[in-house]
Each structure stands twice: as C-alpha cells, then as structure tokens.
C-alpha cells in the first residue's frame, strides 16, 4: 500500500476517492467522438476560411492579386493585411526576457514581408470549406524572394538577417550566474581548478526542432453576432486568448467570450495566441458573420508553433573523485521568425534545471535567443526542462565514463540526499521534498540492473552484432507554474495563480468551476475525486465545468503541469470554504455551537451526540432559505484563488535498455523502467497514463522526431510520412512504479506529472544507445538517433581507431567467419 492510499483512507474513511484508480468519466465521449470539437460546430450563415500561405521562407510581398479568387463561386471575400489593417491587431509576446529584447512586430497576416514558409499572406472567406480552398489557389501573390536566415548558428552570426530592419538576429541574451546571484560560487574558478587538477568535460549537444503534433488540428470559430463576440477555439488557454484579444484589438474584454470545448491534445502546442485565431476574428467582425477556420494537418505541421531547437555548449568541472564543482551552460535558442507568446521564455524555464538533483557549488547559464526565417518556436511538453535534463544527464554519463565508474554511482556522489530536504539549489530554488535514493533503489531492482549489466558484458565479450546499452536518467523538474512573485521577477507578463468555485446545488449535486482548461488530461475525473472526498459527496454527484470564459471567468489555463498542483489546490480551498459556510447554517439548524460540529464523510454531527445533518441537507435548507441564521447570506457557493508559494519538484529514476544492431545501426528498446515520485497521487490510473504518454513523447525525441528544413527554408518533414510519430506498435510495455515524498508546498501533497515522462526519458534512451556502442569508440549520437546516424557513428569511431584494425579491435572476434566481410562493406 502506498502512502497516498493510506493518507486518502485516513482522510475520508473507507469511501476515500483520492487514491482510487477510477476510469476517466470524460473518456466515453472523448473516445467515441460524441462530443463537440470546434470543427463540429456549425452556426447559421457561417463562412469558411482558407489561408493563403507563403511558399518562401523570406520574401517581399510585391503585390497580391485577389481578383480571380473574389469572383470564384461562393466566395464572400478575400483579404490581405491591408484589407484588415484596422481590425487584425497584433500578436503579443507575454514574456520579454530582457528589457532590450528585440522582437519584430507580429501581425496575424504578413504585411510587407513573409518571414517563414507557411506564413499567412491572405485569407479567403466562402460559403463552403471547399469553395474557400479552391479560391485560395486563385490568389496570385507576387513574391520577391529575399535571403533567408535558416541555420541557427549562422543566424546567430548575423550573416543573413531574418528581419533586416532590426539590424540583427539576436533577440535577447539572458544570464544567470550563481556568483552574481549569491547562490553559489564562480564557475570559471571551478573550471580553472578542475583543469589544473580534476576533470573537465566539454560537450556540444543539439536539441533538434520538434513539432507538438497534437491529435486534433487547430480549429477556430468566431461568432460576432449581437453585443458579444464568441470565439470557440481548440486551445489550452481560453483565458489568455480572451485577455490578448481585448488587449490587441480594442474590443472590451467584457464583450469577448472564449470557449475551449473539448480539445484534442495540445502538449504546449495550443499554449498560443495564433494568427489564425486573430484572422478569423477580424474576418468575422469585418463581414458581420460567423466564420470558421480549421487547419489541415499539413498546415498544422508547418504553422502551429514548433518546439526545442537549441545548441547547447556545456562545460562540467569535477574533482578526480567525481564530485562536480561547477557547470557552465551556453545556449543558442532558435525563436523562429517571431517572438511568440512565451517563446523567448522557454530556455529561461530550463535555466533553473541544469543542476537537476545535484549539489553543484557553482553554476553559470547564458542563452542567446535568435530570430530565423522558420516557424516560430514556443512551449512543447516540458518547455526548457527536457533540454536541461538531457544536457545534464548526458554529461553525468560522460563523467562516469571518464572516471570509469557506474553512472548510478557518479550520480549518487553528487545528488541531494533525502535528509537534506528542503534544499536550496545553486539557482536559489527551494526543493521541498524528494528521495532520490529510494526512487533509484526501486528502479534498479525493477530493472534487474546487475543482470542487464552482466548481459551487456557478455555481449561485448562475444562480439555480438547486437550490443546492449543501459541508459540512466535521474531527473527532477520544476513545474506547477507558478508563484506569481517569481514570474514577476522573471519579467513574465502575468501571474501564476489559479481559481475555482464550488456551487452546492439544491438537489445534492455539486458544480465545480475551474480556471484550468483540460485538453485530454482527465481533470473532470481527478477534481471530482478531490471534491467528493472534501465534501463527502458521491463522485458521481460532482460536475466539473471549464473552458468557457463565461462560465469560468477567472483562470490562467493549463500548461506547465499546473492543473492539479495549482488548480487542484484552488478547488480544495473553495470546497473548504463551502464546508465552513455550511457549518454556520448547520449549527443554527441543529441548535448547536459551530465549534461543537464535526464534519466527516459529508455530514455535520454535534460532538458527543447522534444529532447531525448532511451537507446536502444544509444545501437544500440554504436554497429554501426559510430559516437562515441572522446576517448569513443564503448561499454556500464559494470561490478561491490560489497562488502557489513554490514550484512543484517531481523527480524519478528512469532506466532504459536499448539493443543496437551494429550491422545496420537499428535500435530497439528492450526494457524501460520509470520510478517516479510525484508526491501523493489522486488517481493512479491517470498518473500512469500521463507517464506512459510522456515517456513515448520523450522517447520519440530521442529516436524518431525531427522537423527538418531544406536549404530554401521549406519544411521537408511536412507530413507524417517524414515527421515520424511513433504508435503503440513502435513501443514496448513500460515498467512504471512510484515512490512517494509528499509535496510540502500544498495541502494535497501532490506534484505535477504531465511533463515528467517527457523530461526524463529522452536522455535515458540516448544514454542507452551511446552506452551500447561506447566500447566501439562512440561517445555521442545526435538526436534523433536514426539507424543511419548510429551506424555512421560506429563507422566513424572505427575509422578513428585505424590503422590498428582488425587485430586491435577486441570487441569483435576477428576470427569469426564472415565478420570481416561485413565490416569491409561498412567501412
């Protein structure tokens, strides 16, 4: 039995909902599609939009001839930026990371220049989606192609400018230094000392560009009828969309209603205010008619924001016995063609996590964000933290190799021990709780670590063409975004609080309104479990309302693994207020003192008597309001706004075994163990689902996914033929378990789980691939670790070891018949 289950049982008797692996109440409608996705919505007189997009990465728009499109059948209007200049507004950057950050003005429709291949240059409105698409083909745009800034390193050198009028591609340079911050020592001194008498590891890693690739392409429907403008949109952030629309289009916020109906996934890709939303609003307002735009998958891949895309230059200093003395991180981060909603802030979110679970005495971080003529980048599951975790977990394996010790051993020499919590990191963050020893010990046992190491040794000894590698990732992350004061100190444009209301209905059911906005997470189930326990009502009696700014006017939406640890805490506080309000009424009706009432399992009882009444009876009495105590309002409804004191710090130990076919470079996962510590667990089934999905997404970065542009800036991986998403058929069954160190920063003791698997798994997989062929001389394979890259890494390592082959290649038995011919073919 886990700590969670014990705690849950203690809290609410045998009927405890918290800790139950309930199936998700929303799944039937989501899985069968018997629900309303944005694209299913049809309004009377609704028009359909099609976008005309630039095929060029960088081009001056000399002219746009819309005549043929305008006169095409069923077309109602064709609009360029000039046509909608008064209405289209601008797209905002909510996180200018430095005061002098350079950011080009971002209009929804490109004005003078198209700045990436896929940018909207015109929009067609027609009576059917087909007519709109047909007419879009008829829009004749005269482009004058301009040199494009594509390669990140070249762009950072300003050889070609993405926005010539800015004079540079360098957007912002953001630094954290532990010596300057007073949170640690001087990293240059640490490196100098290690060069003199210690170990210095220097590496450069590439975080490839990724595409969030959510299941439901983005769709938006705007109804400008009457006084109010209603926008249905497939978004993670209805409240942010509403705020930004008001702020940039001049419409009063009170007139704007944004609805995120059921939304099919986001992974950060729908944490955005999009050109397509703004264009749909502008066209609908201009024509005074409802207008809908649903992107195709091709458009989604090219124009939905991308993620990652960094070069990481890393210097790690350590003593000869493997204690890290300093870490220096220098990043180049590709923003794409604009600084999008939180685009510049993504690497900053990672800045605090390169030190991970370790006690590093000195740390320096610097990021240069760079504009290029590619799709803009922004949050993608983990946002900054996967990049950080990858870098440090790869480096720890390199350090282990340098020292000749087991990679788990070198981590143990550096990690924070469980007695040391709460622990203030070299970045100044206070890690509230954790137990890295326990998670690692459990993972190690689940994995059969020693047996797999023994098998690895046997395969090396035998020169098996299929080699075995073991990868370690002991991660932590900061999530549960976020304490508002911390966001303020980082120049983020909003707070990190969350809001909830609980309404007791007279018939005994409970409506809970939340500001977080689910898009597949299972909020309705988990929050129902919390409220059921808190109020002692049946799980089935709780209804969770969300995703409509008219129903849920206050909220900051869903991202950064915040919904439970921030939003769930707001739910708890609102529910507790209901109980306190009901206590006064119950005392009155029971003719007892409020102090003498006990609330347990949904019932108030007068201590020491058998007198009592259920909360639902109180609710009914309050509805009738026939007999209220003097001066008490006839309502139990309660609101709470919760601003977290701290981030959430889930952690875990992930172990991965990969088989590498040295003849082809093919990699195959053999075993994957994830032992995560996400604090107390509300619903183990949902947590397991989040971990499984997160793992696959992180594994996909390691092995499969990469957004590739050609020399002209066209997205080559522009369909799922070339952008390889894994399916269940490509993955194995993961071994998932957990340890529990309850969070001390919230009342439920929970930690975020939405991003953990993605953050942890990527380095585990790459470490395993490298470990499988390290004895052949390989110390890195760039992601994704395609068979070709793995095979070439082996060939290059062999070539580097010449002319000592074949006699001095101890790992393959040169006498084995037939081996030499394969090697000959490969060389």
């Amino acid at each position: 039995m886990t700590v969670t289950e014990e705690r849950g049982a203690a809290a609410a008797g045998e009927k405890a909902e918290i800790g139950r692996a309930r199936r998700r109440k929303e799944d039937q409608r989501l899985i069968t599609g018997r629900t309303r996705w944005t694209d299913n919505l049809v309004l009377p007189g609704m028009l359909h939009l099609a976008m005309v997009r630039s095929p060029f990465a960088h081009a001056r728009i000399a002219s746009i001839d819309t005549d043929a499109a305008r006169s095409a059948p069923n077309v109602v209007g064709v609009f360029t930026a000039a046509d909608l200049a008064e209405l289209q507004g601008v797209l905002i950057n909510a996180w200018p990371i430095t005061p002098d950050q350079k950011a080009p003005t971002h209009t929804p429709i490109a004005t003078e220049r198209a700045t990436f291949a896929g940018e909207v240059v015109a929009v067609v409105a027609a009576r059917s989606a087909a007519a709109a698409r047909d007419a879009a083909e008829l829009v004749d745009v005269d482009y004058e192609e301009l040199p494009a800034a594509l390669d990140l390193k070249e762009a950072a050198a300003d050889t070609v400018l993405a926005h010539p009028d800015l004079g540079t591609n360098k957007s912002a340079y953001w630094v954290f230094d532990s010596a300057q911050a007073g949170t640690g020592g001087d990293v240059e001194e640490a490196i100098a000392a290690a060069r003199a008498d210690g170990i210095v590891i220097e590496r450069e890693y590439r975080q490839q560009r990724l595409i969030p690739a959510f299941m439901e392409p983005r769709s938006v429907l705007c109804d400008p009828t009457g006084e109010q403008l209603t926008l249905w949109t497939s978004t993670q952030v209805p409240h942010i969309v509403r705020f930004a629309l008001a702020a940039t289009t001049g419409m009063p916020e009170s007139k704007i209603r944004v609805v995120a109906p059921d939304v099919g996934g986001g992974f950060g890709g729908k944490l955005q205010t999009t050109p397509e939303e703004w264009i749909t609003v502008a066209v609908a307002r201009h024509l005074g008619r409802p207008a809908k735009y649903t992107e195709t998958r091709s458009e989604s891949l090219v124009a939905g924001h991308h993620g990652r895309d960094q070069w990481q230059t890393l210097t790690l200093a350590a003593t000869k016995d493997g204690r890290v003395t300093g870490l220096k991180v220098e990043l180049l981060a590709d923003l794409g063609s604009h600084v999008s909603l939180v685009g510049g802030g993504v690497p900053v979110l990672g800045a605090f996590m390169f030190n991970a679970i370790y006690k590093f005495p000195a740390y320096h971080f610097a990021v240069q964000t760079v504009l290029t003529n590619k799709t803009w980048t922004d949050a993608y599951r983990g946002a900054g933290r996967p990049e950080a975790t990858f870098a440090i977990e790869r480096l720890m394996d390199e350090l282990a190799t340098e020292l000749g010790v087991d990679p788990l051993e070198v981590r143990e020499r550096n990690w924070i021990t469980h007695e040391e919590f709460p622990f203030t990191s070299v970045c100044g963050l206070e890690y509230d709780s954790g137990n890295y020893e326990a998670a690692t010990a459990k993972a190690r046992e689940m994995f059969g670590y020693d047996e797999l190491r023994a098998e690895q040794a046997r395969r090396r000894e035998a020169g098996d063409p299929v080699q075995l590698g073991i990868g370690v990732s002991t991660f932590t992350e900061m999530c549960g975004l976020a304490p508002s004061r911390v966001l303020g100190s980082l120049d983020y444009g909003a707070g990190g609080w969350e809001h909830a209301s609980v309404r007791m209905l007279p018939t005994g059911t409970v409506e809970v309104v939340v500001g977080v906005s689910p898009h597949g997470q299972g909020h309705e189930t988990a929050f129902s479990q919390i409220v059921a326990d808190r109020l002692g009502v049946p799980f089935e009696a709780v209804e969770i309302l969300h995703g409509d700014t008219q129903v849920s006017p206050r909220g900051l939406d869903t991202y950064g693994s915040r919904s439970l640890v921030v939003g769930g805490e707001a739910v708890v506080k609102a529910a507790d207020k209901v109980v306190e309000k009901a206590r006064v009424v119950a005392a009155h009706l029971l003719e007892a003192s409020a102090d003498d009432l006990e609330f347990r399992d949904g019932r108030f009882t007068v201590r020491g008597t058998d007198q009592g009444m259920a909360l639902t009876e109180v609710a009914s009495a309050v509805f009738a309001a026939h007999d209220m105590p003097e001066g008490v309002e006839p309502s139990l409804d309660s609101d709470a706004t919760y601003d977290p004191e701290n981030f959430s710090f889930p952690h875990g130990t992930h172990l991965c075994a990969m088989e590498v076919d040295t003849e082809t470079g093919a990699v195959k996962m053999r075993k994957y163990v994830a032992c995560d510590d996400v604090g107390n667990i509300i619903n183990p089934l949902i947590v397991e689902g989040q971990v499984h999905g997160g793992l696959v997404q992180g594994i996909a970065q390691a092995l499969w996914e990469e957004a590739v542009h050609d020399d002209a800036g066209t997205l080559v991986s522009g369909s799922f033929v070339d952008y390889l998403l894994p399916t269940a058929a490509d993955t194995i069954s993961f071994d998932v378990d957990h340890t529990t160190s309850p969070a001390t920063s919230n009342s439920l003791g929970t930690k975020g789980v939405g991003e953990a698997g993605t953050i942890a798994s990527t380095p585990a997989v790459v470490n395993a691939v490298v470990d499988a062929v390290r004895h052949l001389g390989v110390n890195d394979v760039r992601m994704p670790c395609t068979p070709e890259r793995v095979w070439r890494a082996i060939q290059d390592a062999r070539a580097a070891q010449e002319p000592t082959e074949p006699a001095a290649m101890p790992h393959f038995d040169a006498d084995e018949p037939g081996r030499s011919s394969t090697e000959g073919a490969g060389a």
Partner: protein
Amino acid sequence: MIPAPFDYLAPTTVEEALAALAEHGDDAKVVAGGQSLLPVLRMRLNTPEVVVDLGRIDSLRGIREEGDHLVVGAMTTHHEVRTSDLVRTHAAVLAHATDQLADSQIRHRGTLGGALAHADPAGDQGACVLSLGAELEVTGPGGARTVPADQFFLGLFETALGDDEILTAVRIPKHTGWGGHYEKFVRVVHQWPIVAVAASVRLEGGTIAEARVGLTNMGPTYLRARGVEEALVGATPTLDGVREAAERATEGTDPPSDLNGDADYRRHLAGVLTARAVVAAAGG
C-alpha cells in the same frame, strides 16, 4: 485537405472503364483502393478532371490457380492476398511482404493491382512480383496483353500502362515449395521501407538450388538482384554462407538519399538485409 473538384465515374465492367479512359484520356486518373491516390488528390499534388473508380468491377477480384500460375485479380485487396492459402503456398514472399504492409485499415482498402500500377519504388509488392518473374495482364482498347514484370516497371511512378489501359491481373509463376521472406527495414512500423529485400529460396540437399531476390527502394523502381541470385546457387543458407553473395545486392542500384539515409547507407543496408532475407527464406 479538400481535393480540387473532379468528376467521379464508377464503371461496373472493364469495358465501361476502358470506354471512360478512352473518352477522357490523360485528364482521367484511375483509382483502385485509393490509398496512394487520395492523399495525393487531397494535397492537390494531382488534379485530374475525372477519377475512374475500379472498385465496382467484380471481375477484377479474386485469386485462382491457372496451371503453373497463380492469377490475382488487380482489385484483390492486400487483406485478401495475405489471408490466401494459395498465395502463402505458391508465393510465400508476397504473403510475407503483405503481412508487413501498413496497417489493417489500409490492407482492407488497398489492392495489389493498385500498388503495382502506382509503382512507388518504396512500395512493398513490386519487388516480390518482380523477383518471382510475374507477368502483368494489361487490358486496353485492343484487348488484353501480357507484360513481364521486368518490362512493366519503368521508373519512378512509371509503368508500361498506357493512358487508355488498366492493369487487370497479376500472373505469378507458382513457387511451390520455395521459402519466402520479406526483410523490411523501417524506423517506425507505418513507414515505407528505407530498404527492403524480397527473397525466395529453393533448397536441395541443404544448399541453395535456386534463389530469387528483389529490392525495394534501391532505385527509381524495383530491382531484381540477379547477381545475388547467381552467386547464391550452391551456397549454404547461413549468414556466413550467403554473405559474400549478398554483397552483390548493390550491383546496378541507384538508391535515393533522404531523411532516413543517404544512398551509401542504403547500399550498405541492401547487403546486410539481403543476407538476412535469404537465410530467413531458407528457414534459418
């Protein structure tokens, strides 16, 4: 993903289909299972004025024996091919390749004839029928003609089919008693093969008496590795026994370079995979 407008014809006989093609010429496009054409239409990479659907011509379906040949109607689905005992008995490599083709939905829609007429060099069936020495029955205004597979596949998406002709059947010489194996190299299962090798082997007294080897995605169209076939005669069906012969798989190849690997890597793979395919076909 809305295609450009087109007219849709659904003939119920071969004659009607041919009449439609005669009338519309190269403005028309034939659709079989639609698993390749529909995405192309939806992405507007092709905008035919007329689409002629062969799906209602019952005479184009089915698998039967005709003497020492197996005759597969062009509109026979991949699912029907892979679940056919006749195919598994007489053309094992085709059955094995079809087992690995895409997913269940696609196998129930896509057809053998459609895949061959499309002639995508990364398609799985071409190398099988080519290596088995199949003939393709092509019907046009003047009646039916038979084209050997090695004269049917001309290049990238290019076949000997005229604008006014349709592929009606595939005649495969029975390879009864032969082992067959399709070695497909992919990064994810739903992907077209980076390289694949179709191998069929007949053993006599523990050594290889005859072998047929076809290559997928090693050139603008399917290739038959005749050098490998010759070199395999008399070889012991073990990895070591066939490795030298398998190296000849690179002869005459012209593989593409793309995100999954460059031409050199594909040539290397062809050798490794050929050895594995042959050994597996031999039951190893």
